[in-house]
C-alpha cells in the first residue's frame, strides 16, 4: 500500500508541468541568471591576505608537542601564514583584540585541547578555524573555540557575513565564483519552497475531493499520512540531486571540495527539504488556503533578507535570525571549510522538526473528519 501511494505521488509530481518547472527547472535557471548575469554586481571574492597567528604549547604529551611543532612548521612554510610562538597569552589576546594579529591558539592538556582566541575579522577567523579543524581531526584533539573579544562577533556581522563563505580558498586550490554562491543559496531556496509540495499534498487531495476516498479505505490513518509524506521523499531526492548535478555539469558550479563533504551537504539539504515538507503537510491539514497566498510570501521575504538572492544583503540583527540564513551559513561552512559544526546543528534541528511534525500530523490526520 505504501509503495502504491509513493508511486502515485511520484507520477503526479512528474506529470505536473508546473511542479516540474518550479521545483526542477526554475532554481537551475536562477543559478545561471544570478550567477552569471548579475555577477558584476556582486563581489564574489574576498582576499584573506597574510594570516598572523600567535600560539602557545602547554600540552604535556611529548607526542602532541611534536605534532604541533611539525604542523606549525608546515604552515609557516607557506608564504601567507605566519605562526609565532608567544610568551604571554594575555598580551597576544590583547593584540588580537586590537586587530594587530588574527588569532591566538593554545595547545593544552592531555588529551590535547586546542583553544582558539579569535580576532576581529570573521573571515580570517574562519580560515584559522578551518586549519585547526583539520589539525584536530588528524590528531584527535579537542577544539575549544573561545571568543576573547565579544566585539569580534559584531564586527564579523558588519563585514557582510552573508558573503563570508566566499573567500578565495587558495589552500584548497578553488577559485570561487558567484555561480558557486548561488548554487548553494538556490539549493536553500529549493528546500524551503518545498513547503508548497508538503502543503499541497493534503490541500490538493481536498481540492481533488480524493481525501474522502483515502479516508474510507481500510488503511490505518497514521500509515496513510506517513505514506503520503514518504511519497514526497523521492521528489525531495530528485530535486536536490538534479539541482546539484545540473549546476555542476552545466555551470561548473562547485560545492564542497571532496566527495564526503558533498554527500553530507546533499544529506543536509535532503533533511531540510524533508523537514520543510513535513511542516507544509501539517500546515495543509490545518489550513485549507493555498500557501502561495499565505506563508509563501513570508518565505520569499526571509530568503531576501538572508542574502539568498544577493550576498550584499545583510541587515544586522535581522538577517542572523532567519533560519534560511543559518542554513546557508551551515552550507557555506561545510562547502568551503569542511566545517561540520553548523551543518550538524541543522541536521539535528531538521530531524527533530521532522519527527515532531510527523507525530503532530499523523495525530491530526487520524482525528480529523473530512466534511
Amino acid at each position, binding site marked *: 500500500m505504501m509503495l502504491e501511494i509513493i508511486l*502515485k505521488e511520484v507520477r*503526479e509530481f512528474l*506529470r505536473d508541468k508546473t511542479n516540474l518547472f518550479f521545483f526542477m527547472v526554475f532554481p537551475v535557471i536562477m543559478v545561471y541568471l544570478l550567477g552569471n548575469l548579475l555577477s558584476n554586481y556582486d563581489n564574489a571574492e574576498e582576499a584573506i591576505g597574510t594570516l598572523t597567528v600567535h600560539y602557545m604549547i602547554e600540552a604535556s604529551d611529548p607526542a602532541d608537542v611534536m605534532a604541533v611543532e611539525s604542523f606549525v612548521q608546515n604552515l609557516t612554510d607557506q608564504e601567507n601564514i605566519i605562526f609565532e610562538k608567544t610568551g604571554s597569552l594575555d598580551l597576544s589576546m590583547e593584540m588580537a583584540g586590537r586587530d594587530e594579529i588574527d588569532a591566538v591558539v593554545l595547545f593544552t592538556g592531555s588529551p590535547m585541547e586546542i583553544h582558539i582566541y579569535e580576532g576581529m575579522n570573521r573571515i580570517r577567523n574562519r580560515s584559522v578555524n578551518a586549519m585547526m579543524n583539520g589539525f584536530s581531526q588528524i590528531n584527535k584533539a579537542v577544539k575549544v573555540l573561545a571568543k576573547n573579544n565579544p566585539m569580534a562577533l559584531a564586527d564579523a556581522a558588519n563585514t557582510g557575513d552573508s558573503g563570508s563563505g566566499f573567500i578565495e580558498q587558495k589552500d584548497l586550490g578553488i577559485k570561487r565564483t558567484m555561480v558557486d554562491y548561488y548554487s548553494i543559496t538556490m539549493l536553500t531556496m529549493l528546500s524551503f519552497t518545498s513547503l508548497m509540495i508538503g502543503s499541497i499534498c493534503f490541500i490538493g487531495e481536498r481540492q481533488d475531493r480524493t481525501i474522502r*476516498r483515502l*479516508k*474510507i*479505505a*481500510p488503511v490505518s490513518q497514521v500509515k496513510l499520512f506517513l505514506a503520503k509524506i514518504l511519497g514526497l521523499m523521492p521528489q525531495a531526492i530528485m530535486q536536490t540531486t538534479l539541482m546539484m548535478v545540473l549546476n555542476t555539469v552545466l555551470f561548473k558550479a562547485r560545492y564542497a571540495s571532496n566527495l564526503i563533504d558533498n554527500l553530507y551537504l546533499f544529506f543536509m539539504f535532503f533533511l531540510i527539504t524533508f523537514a520543510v515538507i513535513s511542516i507544509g503537510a501539517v500546515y495543509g491539514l490545518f489550513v485549507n488556503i493555498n500557501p502561495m497566498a499565505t506563508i509563501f510570501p513570508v518565505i520569499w521575504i526571509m530568503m531576501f533578507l538572508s542574502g539568498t538572492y544577493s550576498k550584499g544583503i545583510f541587515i544586522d540583527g535581522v538577517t542572523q535570525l532567519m533560519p534560511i540564513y543559518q542554513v546557508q551559513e551551515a552550507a557555506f561552512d561545510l562547502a568551503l571549510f569542511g566545517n561540520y559544526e553548523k551543518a550538524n546543528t541543522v541536521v539535528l534541528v531538521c530531524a527533530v522538526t521532522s519527527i515532531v511534525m510527523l507525530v503532530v500530523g499523523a495525530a491530526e490526520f487520524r482525528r480529523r*473528519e473530512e466534511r
Partner: protein
Amino acid sequence: MSYVYVENLVKKYGDLTAVDHISFTVEKEEIFGLLGPNGAGKSTTLNVITTLTDFNKGEVIINGLDIRKDKSQIKQIIGMVPQDIAIYNHLSAYENVKFFASLYGLRGSRLRKNVLEALEFVGLSDKIKEKPKNMSGGMRRRLNIACGIAHDPRLIVLDEPTVGVDTQSREHILNSIRQLRDRGATVIYTSHYMQEVEEICDRIAIIDKGKMIALGTERELVSMVTDVKSIYVETRIPAGFDREAFCKKLKLMPGVKAVKAEDAVIRVDVSIEQNGTERIIQEFLNHRLPIDNIKSEVPNLDTLFLTLTGRELR
C-alpha cells in the same frame, strides 16, 4: 438481519443537527434510495455509514458488524462513489482505478482483472490510457463510479452519482447500478432527482431537515397521500348525446372513484390499484365518442413531499 441497520442516528455539527434520530434498514441486494433536498442530511448519513464521520448518538450495524467497533472490517466491504468527482487528473483512467483498488489490498493479476472489469463495466474500456482532463463530464462520472467499485464491495454507496451528466451517461449509470444489485451488491443511493429514485430504488426514505419523513416502496409512499390517479379525456360530444348518463356509467366501472365533466373534457379519477385506463378509453369508443386528447395525472414522490412539507423537492 438486515444488511444495513441504522437506529436513531444523530449527528450534530455544533448547534446544527444534521441528522436527527433517523432509523432505517437496508436489505441485502436491495437498492435503497435516500431522497431529499440539498442540505437534508443525506450526505451526512452516508458519511456515517461509510465510516467517514463519527456520530453523536444511535447505532449503525452493517453486515452484522458494529460501525464503532469493527470499522476496519466494515471499510473493507464498502465502496463509495462520492457526489464530487474524486479522481486524480494527472493519472490515467486505469491508474486511477488501480490506485484506489490497491488501497483495499488487491494485488497482481487480481488487481489488474478487477480494474479492467470495473472500467468495462462503466463503459470506459477504450479509455484506459486517457487522462480525466481529456474526458467528458459523463465519462468522468463513470470513472468516479469505477474507482468506487473495482475492489468488488458488497455495499455500494452512491451519493448523487448523476449530477450534471447528459441523458446518455445518466442512463448508463442507472443501468450500471441495477447490474451491481443483480450481481449481489447492496446499494444505497441518494439523489434529489425524484424520477431517478422512483426508477431504480426498491425502497425509498425521504429526508428533510435531518429527519426522516417517509419510508417505503414508491407505491406505499404515494399511497400515503392518495391512491387515485386522474385521467383527463378531451372529446367532442355529439348533439343529443346524454352526457350525464355516460358519466354515471363510467362511475359504475370498477376502480372509478369520481367522474366530472367540464365542457369537452371529462375527468375520471381511478384507483391506481385498478389501473382502468384502457377500459375507460374503450368505454369512450363504445359510445362513439372521439378522443382528441388524453392525459393522466399520477401522484408521485414530489406530490408526497409537497404534501408532507409544504415545499417542492427541488
